[in-house]
Structures are given as structure tokens and as C-alpha cells.
């Protein structure tokens, strides 16, 4: 008789609140569960709290209240010295790219691999391949300041995905590229997603949803997950595996 079990969540937020200093809560009562290999879009107006929610996801902040579980472990009380290990499992595309200005395109993309201790001989091939994929092979030695906004965004995305993270968090990753490049980048995300990476993309552009099959949406409104048309237009569901 076939047994059925639910896949374990990769991220679980339970009644999470985030407050900067003594101000009002930026995020309030956020609860959701993300599953491995799923693709999520996070939408909402400017100031709704998308970037703050992403910061909690890539462990740049700890919540003011509530609990967050990542990879099956409590991420709120996680000792500081264990954070690097968790962060290496998460790829981040920052809204402002945050490229290291004095490093070349090649070195920026290679950075996560080098931080993880990958040997130079082992990273040359994936970095070169990634450069080719984002169409910047010719700009491998260029510094970020000499790249256009779109090129910088592609480098930021390449840097986030090169380590094949288990979770990819992207803040407006297609904001500065033309529609054709936006589609190519989404295809890259989709390919990564097929390999098992959980993708969370914060975007204003709800048309992107149409490009990704089975993508689910979370919408933030004034710091709360809104029901839309629903808190979740396509609420995240646990994947069911048959063994």
C-alpha cells in the first residue's frame, strides 16, 4: 500500500512581527509556510514591507516577535556563529544590487563560492558559464561602476544563483532590465526552481506571474499578508510525495 507524506517546509513564519527601533510594526502577524521547490511571488505597494519580509528571509534581521523556522530549525534563537552556515544556503538578489565596487564582474560572481571555500580551479568553469548565460562574458573584467543598471542587476542575479542555493530571495530582480532579459532571468530562476531551489521574488510586476508555471503569490498590504483577492491568490500548498 503506497504511503503518503507531506514534504517538510523549508521556511515557516508564525505570527511574526518586525519593528525597527521603537517605531510602529513594519510587519504584523505574518504567518506562512514555504515548501522546497516552490516558486513564490511577493507583491504589494511600495512601503508595504516586502523588503523587510525578505530581510527576515535572508536572515539580515531577527523578528521582534513570533517564530521563524528555516530548514527545520528555529531561526530566531539561532546562535550568531551558526548564521553563516544558514546564509550560505540562501541566495539573495538585493534591490540595489550591492555589488562589491572594487571587484570585477568575474570576482563579484565568484564571491559566494570563494566565501564557501571553493578552490579557484573548481570555480572557473561555473563562473565563466554564468557570465556567458547572463551575456556578460566580454565584461568579465569590468568594475560595477562601468556597467549599466541592467548589467549590474544581471551580475547580482548571477552572484545569487551561482552557489545553487536552497532558497533564492530576489528583491525586484527584473526592475532594471528590458522585457527580453527579464524573461531570460525568470527562465534562469525557473531552471533553478526545477532543480529544487525555493524561489521568492518580490516584484511590482504581477505580469511576471504568467511566465512561471505553478507560481504562487503572496501579497503584502501595510505590513500584513493581505487576503485578495486574498492573502494568497494561489495559497502555498505542501507538495505531496508518494514513496
Amino acid at each position: 500500500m503506497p504511503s503518503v507524506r507531506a514534504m517538510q517546509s523549508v521556511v515557516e513564519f508564525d505570527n511574526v512581527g518586525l519593528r525597527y527601533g521603537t517605531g510602529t510594526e513594519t510587519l504584523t502577524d505574518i504567518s506562512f509556510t514555504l515548501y522546497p521547490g516552490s516558486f513564490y511571488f511577493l507583491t504589494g505597494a511600495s512601503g508595504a514591507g516586502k523588503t523587510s519580509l525578505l530581510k527576515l528571509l535572508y536572515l539580515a534581521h531577527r523578528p521582534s516577535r513570533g517564530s521563524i523556522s528555516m530548514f527545520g530549525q528555529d531561526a530566531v534563537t539561532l546562535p550568531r556563529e551558526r548564521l553563516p552556515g544558514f546564509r550560505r544556503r540562501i541566495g539573495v538578489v538585493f534591490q540595489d544590487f550591492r555589488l562589491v565596487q572594487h571587484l570585477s564582474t568575474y570576482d563579484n560572481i565568484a564571491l559566494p563560492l570563494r566565501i564557501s571555500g571553493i578552490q579557484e580551479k573548481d570555480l572557473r568553469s561555473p563562473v565563466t558559464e554564468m557570465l556567458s548565460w547572463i551575456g556578460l562574458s566580454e565584461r568579465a573584467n569590468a568594475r560595477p561602476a562601468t556597467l549599466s543598471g541592467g548589467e549590474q542587476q544581471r551580475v547580482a542575479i548571477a552572484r545569487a544563483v551561482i552557489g545553487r542555493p536552497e532558497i533564492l530571495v530576489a528583491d525586484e530582480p527584473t526592475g532594471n532590465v528590458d522585457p527580453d532579459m527579464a524573461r531570460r532571468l525568470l527562465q534562469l530562476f525557473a531552471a533553478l526552481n526545477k532543480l529544487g531551489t525555493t524561489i521568492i521574488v518580490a516584484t511590482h510586476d504581477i505580469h511576471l506571474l504568467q511566465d512561471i508555471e505553478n507560481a504562487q503569490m503572496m501579497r503584502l498590504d501595510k505590513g500584513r499578508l493581505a487576503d485578495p483577492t486574498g492573502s494568497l491568490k494561489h495559497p502555498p500548498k505542501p507538495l505531496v510525495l508518494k514513496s
Partner: protein
Amino acid sequence: MLLDFALPDHERKLIPEGRVSGSMPWVIAIMTFLTLLAAAAGLIMANAAAQGGANLARQVTVQIIEPDPAARRAQRSAVARLLQTAPGVENVEIIPDAEVRELLAPWLGDDVIDADIPVPSLIDIRLDQPANEESLAQLSKQIAPIAPSTRLDSQADWMVPFFSLMNSLMLLTSGILLLLLIATSASVVLAVRSALNTHRETIEIMHMMGGTDLQAARLFQRRMALDALLGGVVGFILAVLVIWLLSMQFSAAGSSLLTGAALPWYGWIILALIPLAVTGLAMLIARRTVLSALKKIL
């Protein structure tokens, strides 16, 4: 920690190394230069005090105070003969009358001395042990039957204030060394904090990608070590030049008080180790400063 110094090229690139352009190597060079001068002064004084003290403590001057020149000369010869066989006396040297007159001439004038003023006869003796009250009393007792008006002066007695001054100067030198060490450490802390602020963005990006505090600390400690080493070498070369020139002048002075005022051989080794110690200290402080600063961010 030494292994941390040898970072691969790609890690070095993370924090740009504008070594010579920054002020830190020159601050370290000045600090090392001053530290080396203070250390050299301390070592020279310690050496002079040890050598001079050991020699002078064994030197005793016998003064034969006899108004009659003939009797004085006779007593001098008899005392010298006695002392040559006396136990504990290593060397006996009669100071010729002409030399004694020469010593006194600047104070009494040639005319007065020639007027047959009774000038004591002097005999310098060196004991095999440092002189003390007991050994001097023993010698006086032996000499008394031959020359009743004899006085024994231990040279260590009149050198006591000089050696006391030497000790005070050595203490002062140690204090200066400590202050220089504190100033150097404070400069390193300020430089590292400034560098940390300059490269905060890079460090934050590294953190978000799973970089550890130690990885970041290694970058800064390496940079600081290179600055300190460069500054240390410059400071060392300048200090050696100055010490060498001063040594030449000391030698040219030819004063008996300055005979021990030279840097002993082990002093050069200690001085050579100081820039390395400053480099090690700079690395350690850089590491601690970075780790302590990074603990404040998530």
C-alpha cells in the same frame, strides 16, 4: 594566526590594499623608531650599569696621608708590597706622583702643588670580590701598622648616585616604552576601525553570503600586518642609523664613564625583534578590533 597571514590572491582583493598611500605605515614607522631608541637607551644603560658597577664595586683607592714626603714614599712602597700578597687583592697599581699632581692641578693650580703641599700618595687596588665594609676594615687593619694615616675609599661609594640615576633612567625608559606601546596599539585600533567603516559595505555583503567574522578579520589583520611590517622596517633602519652614529660619538668621547655605554650583542637581537613584535601586536589588535566590532552586527 601566521597561516592567516598568507591569504590567497582572491581573498586579498576583497579589501583593497592601499598600503603606502595610507598613513598607517608611517605612523608605525615613527612609533617603531621611537620604541627602538627608547629600548636601545635602556639596553645601553643597563649594560653600562652592569659593566661599570661590576668593575667599580671591586675598585678601592688607598690614600696614604703623610706630611713627610720621604716617609710617605716609604709607606707607599711598604703598603704596596703588603697588598700584593694580601688575600682577596687581585691587582695593585701605584699611581705615580706626577699623575696625582696632574689630577689635582686643575683645582689647586701648578704653583701650589710645586710649593710642596703634602699631596697624599695613591694606590689603586682591585679586589677579587665587590668591596664591602668588612673587607675594607680587614685591609685597614693590615695596613695600619705600616701606615697609620691611611684611608681606603671604595669607588662604588662615590658612584652610588650615578648608578641610582642610571636606575631611574632605566625605569623612565621602561615607562616610555610602555606609553609607546599603548600609543601604537591605540593607533592600530583607530586605523582598523576607520578601515572597517570604509569597507563596511563589503563586509556586510560578505556576511549576507555566509562569510564568517574570522574571514573578515583575516582580511584586516593581513592588511594591518603588512602596514606594520613596512613601517617597522623603515623605523628599524632609521633607528639603527641613529644608534650607530651615537655609538661612534660615544667611542670618540673616550670617557671612562662611557666605556660600558655600548649596545651589547644581544641588544641588537632584541632591537631586531621589536618590529616583528609590533607587527604581531598590530595583527592581534586588528583581529580583536574587527571581531569585537562585527559582534555588534547580525
